[in-house]
């Protein structure tokens, strides 16, 4: 690129004030989160004035039996729901992006996206209505079913994106070398698709871990999830151990999103 051209480009593409405004926007996005993290390390009981660095609230959080069991419930539900949703979503993505078109394909994709489109409270109310009308009371099972449904589109999107990015010629080459459909699928398509599948799995996992509204509607006594527990703590009033728990959950989410992002980008 010629230096002259470059300078001219920079000139036209510069809108004064937009850079500063964007900087403020990033500040707005991160300020509350940074304050939360900072306060989680604060020794002061009142959680308003900074006194000194301390890990007391993390210790208090780890020692809270009810909190630990809520975290355990959340993990169990998130693992089950995200794995089931990813299997279903992988099959669905293969169905919509590989193989022939079929009647009602656009409608099917629309149906898969439905949990994303409907307001969470409507999904929650509807699921509660189903469980109460058939008297289904499986404890964790109810929550796993509810979570699986809304995790499907989150797992489906990255897997489909990966499938559509993939080079078809590799699968054709396998075909030409007399690999049957099953062999082509297990030896070529699936390994190439793996980053997309992992990416979808991670997103489904966080979405399940973070869900509050639907869990709140569906959960019964004894199956309190972490967000429901935190909501209960917040209703009691702001205490510093909420900050510690929140920081830990944020860390887990950021870790998984980063993994998903890196895997989604990786080229094989």
């Amino acid at each position: 690129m010629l230096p002259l051209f470059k300078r001219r480009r920079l000139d036209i593409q510069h809108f004064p004030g937009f850079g500063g405004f964007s900087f403020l926007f990033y500040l707005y996005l991160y300020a509350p989160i940074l304050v939360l993290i900072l306060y989680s390390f604060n020794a002061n009981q009142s959680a308003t004035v900074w006194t000194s660095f301390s890990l007391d609230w993390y210790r208090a959080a780890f020692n809270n039996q009810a909190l630990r069991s809520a975290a355990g419930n959340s993990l169990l539900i998130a693992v089950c729901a995200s794995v089931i949703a990813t299997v279903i979503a992988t099959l669905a993505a293969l169905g919509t992006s590989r193989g022939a078109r079929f009647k009602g394909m656009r409608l099917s994709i629309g149906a898969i996206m439905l949990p994303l489109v409907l307001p969470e409270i409507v999904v929650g109310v509807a699921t509660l209505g189903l469980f109460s009308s058939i008297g289904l009371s499986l404890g964790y099972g109810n929550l796993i079913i509810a979570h699986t449904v809304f995790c499907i589109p989150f797992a489906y999107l990255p897997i489909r994106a990966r499938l559509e990015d993939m080079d078809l010629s590799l699968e054709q080459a396998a075909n030409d070398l007399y690999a049957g459909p099953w062999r082509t699928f297990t030896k070529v398509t699936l390994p190439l698709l793996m980053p997309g599948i992992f990416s979808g799995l991670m997103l489904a996992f966080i979405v399940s871990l973070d869900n509050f509204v639907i869990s709140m509607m569906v959960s019964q006594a004894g199956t309190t999830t972490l967000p429901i527990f935190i909501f209960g703590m917040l209703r009691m009033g702001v205490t510093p151990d909420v900050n510690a728990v929140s920081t830990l959950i944020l860390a887990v989410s950021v870790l998984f999103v980063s993994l998903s992002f890196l895997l989604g980008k990786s080229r094989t």
Partner: protein
Amino acid sequence: MNSRPIAPGSALERRRALGSLLGVSPALLAIGLFLLVPILIIAAYSLMQANPYGGVDQVFSSEAYTSLLFERQLDDSLAFTDSYLIIALRSVGIATATTLITLLIGFPVAVWLAMQPIRRRGLLIFLITIPFWANLLIRTYAWILLLRGTGVINNSLLGLGLIQQPLPLLYNDGAVLLGLVYTYAPFVVLPIYATLEKMDMRLLEAAQDLYAGRLRTLRKVVLPIARPGILAGAILTFVPCLGAMIAPELLGGGTKLMLGNLIFRQFSDARNWPFGAALALVLMAAVMLVLMFYAMRTERLRVAREGK
């Protein structure tokens, strides 16, 4: 899509279509059984009588829909009441205000992002998506730390001597609005950026060559190109805001209700399932209307662009 040309209607083609259908069927089964059927069930619930202990009695009643607008008096006559209408209008108002503010904030940020060197963009976009994936409950709670009477903002202002009394920043519509804008701003930035990313930068040069100032270039060149992204961002913000529950509950103090909270309460404290189901259906219908409007607009934009 097909890896090799196959005559349509051939046996092989039919087999592949069957395979596709088989692949999609578990997803359709799950969503049909656990989302579509449940919606039909709550539609039925909305036409039944409330059981005072929660749940419904299977007796037909249109009470749930009547009580959207009317209150039953002691002598069993109906009187018009606007209390739920006000909550619905507040929800629409707050959702509209949130959408407008997020667009005003999101557009300049998206334009700035699109003008950044490509190598830097990935990280900048990633930084915008991180808060979006972080737990909504926790992000909203973080604002309490900033806004409350003894929070960071009030303490700083008091410390600087700018105010004598803590400002009432929390538990009002403003706080709810702030929390919603915070939640949905990334939903606006990303689609607008996605439309601008593909923009031909020579258009900007052309505008400048024709003596258009920066403001005019923004209005006449960038804005029209960003229009599909602006529309998508507006929908992505407006629709979830209508049913928002966490921000009104935590930042609004749970007194100024929005539709989401109102629905939730019918299933928790109020124990009026049919009314809650009716409200959920009304909300769903509103969302569907907005989405249909969106589908029609994007189709018109597409036709205008590609000429059929």
